[in-house]
């Protein structure tokens, strides 16, 4: 009875073939869904198989945006419709796009007046970090009023997910994500690992 539905039957067959349990179960599930989609693909009609409707609708969409933006830019020149934004192209690597003030960019460690890090190695950021990219080694500070300081502060940008939790949790305002640097690309993973010295350079 329940297997009379052809879709249901195919589903059961697929589940038999793609066992959604055991190791890599998730990957297998994805595979299963993909196969499911492919096996359910609709046959094209004769008109559709000429591809004329798809080509026309594509040209229509592109032209719509082109003329919309073109007319808006012309109107902007005459000071009209200024509050309706028109699409702009940024010449990115040569001219970086302006960042919002609160956007989260590469981290830095803030300094005390004497140039030492404000960080007291309380391990809050290390604890809260969901990517486990911060590794702090604490040590005894010679000044008993500071007591604790980070002997080493390692931040692996290769692992970092830029969630900003470390900044939010810091009780000393010692770590900030306001350098405005986003174009962090390196040829090796090791170079993505920032130590205390690198994080304190602006």
């Amino acid at each position, binding site marked *: 009875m329940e297997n009379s539905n052809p879709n249901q039957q195919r589903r059961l067959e697929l589940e038999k073939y793609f066992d959604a349990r055991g190791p890599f179960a998730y990957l297998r599930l994805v595979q299963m869904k993909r196969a499911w989609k492919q096996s359910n693909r609709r046959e094209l009609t004769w008109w559709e198989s000429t591809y004329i409707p798809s080509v026309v609708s594509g040209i229509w969409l592109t032209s719509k945006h082109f003329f919309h933006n073109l007319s808006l830019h012309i109107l902007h020149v005459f000071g009209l419709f200024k509050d309706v934004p028109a699409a702009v192209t940024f010449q990115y690597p040569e001219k970086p796009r302006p960042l919002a003030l609160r956007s989260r960019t590469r981290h830095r460690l803030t300094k005390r007046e004497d140039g030492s890090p404000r960080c007291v190695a*309380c*391990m809050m950021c290390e*604890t809260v970090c969901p990517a486990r990219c911060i590794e*702090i080694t*604490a040590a005894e500070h010679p000044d008993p009023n500071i*007591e604790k300081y980070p002997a080493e502060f*390692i931040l692996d940008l290769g692992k970092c997910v830029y969630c900003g939790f470390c900044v939010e949790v810091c*009780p*000393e305002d010692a770590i900030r994500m306001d350098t405005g640097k986003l174009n962090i690309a390196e040829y090796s993973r090791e170079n993505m690992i920032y130590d205390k010295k690198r994080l304190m350079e602006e």
Partner: protein
Amino acid sequence: MPNLTIDGKKIEVPAGTTIIQAADKLGIDIPRYCYHPALPVAGNCRICMVEVEKQAKLQIACYTPVAEGMVVKTTSPKVLEARKTVLEFLLVNHPVDCPVCDQAGECKLQDYYMEHGQYDSRLADVKVKKEKKAFSIGPTVMLDQERCILCTRCVRFADNITKTSEFGVFDRGDHSQLDVYPGKQLDNKYSGNVVDICPVGALTDKDFRFKCRVWYLDKTNSICPGCSMGCNITVEWDKTRPHQHKKARVMRLKPRLNPDVNDYWMCDVGRYDYHFIDENRIQYPQLKDELISWGKAIGTLAQTIKPLQDAGRMDRIGIIASAKLTNEDLFVIRKLFKDTLKISQVDFRVGEKPGDSDNFLIKADKNPNTAGALAILGDSQPDAQAIIAKAKQGQIDLLYVFGHDLVKLFGKDTVEQIYKNVKLFVFQCSNINDTCGYAHLILPSSVYAEKEGTFTNCQQRVQRIWPAFFPLGDSKGDWEILSLLSEQLGAPIKYRGSQEVFKDIAGTMSAFSQMSYEKIADQGMVLKK
């Protein structure tokens, strides 16, 4: 025996019991700073105030004796308001430097603030600063007077438990501060305990200071292997942040309550003697400067035993067990060497010099399981010293030593002669020591924190140890190594785990009868006479 009601629950307790003790019996938690069950009552922190019906004022639970028909309320609005106010007073001059404080995470100020405080600060003045922030008051402990709430637990500990009276509270009002007496240092043998009893971060452990945050720690119950007292401890370890402490796993040891053995305390020697778990370990089997596999190591050993076994020359094998091994290890030694292979020269008494001792927790016998070794291996002749003497004269072909540093015990010359005269000198140990240099075959064994088993202390109490983590490198538990050897010798002694070994012990040895891991649990069981 007065009857009283606490929060609607009825209980009958002996006369002279205080309200806090009765509440503890009922499982009702009353906040406390100065009260500690093992110390005399001071009644100065005032956080434990409760409402007693028909009494106009709130009473402190730690110093009010129970009376017949008493009705106590511990969560009435009046009590909660009092707790909040007391906490506000205690925190007036507290620096709230939790980010740099080692106590953060296990601090009672933090706990009770989250539970009962939650007020906004009303302090308009500047907090009173002390002259010095954190300073050393002895070889093991740092003091921070600003964090201190003057509960005087440490003062009473030094006055009543160690009777060394190092601490005092000086000056008055908000200038009063805790300190050691001028010219004195906190250097008694139990100084580490003041860190445990300090409810705030005023006293911190130099050994643990800044090493690891307490919320990273995992805890495993264990027994201190430092001496035959067998103090109950908790091994606190961390494997998630190896960068913080040079890949060491054990961060600190803390005493665990056992009223029959160590109460709440442990000595400093035991407390700080845990570095051997991670440092200086033998990690792989070694045959004359060459690292080998377990298969080859056990094979070499079996090849030496077999010809002797065939020729019936078991008197040319000497086994020196150790009282540092667990009951399970010793039982498998007995079963394999004494019962199966019929070797008569099996003993553990190497004649170590007795260490220092006192009449509290430190015992002269520095082995955790001497009583267990005597119960299992017996005091048969010849003893280990005689076996060593025989080995020195070349009357022994195979000498199998468990853990003893022979160079330290018998001198370099003796061990050198053993190295020359014995065909195979097997040394099974967890840490590198001088004797390793003279052994032909070195077998790495795991330390107590990596093993499951039992120790029998000087009171004949059998106590359990639990494995905290996997053995380092290729090291194995002592009885597991012997189990491998027994398979190679064709007389397999197979167990699925330490629990099964212990079942076998309980089944075969009268002293251990009716014992099991479940019954021993975390408080131990006394051996039968």
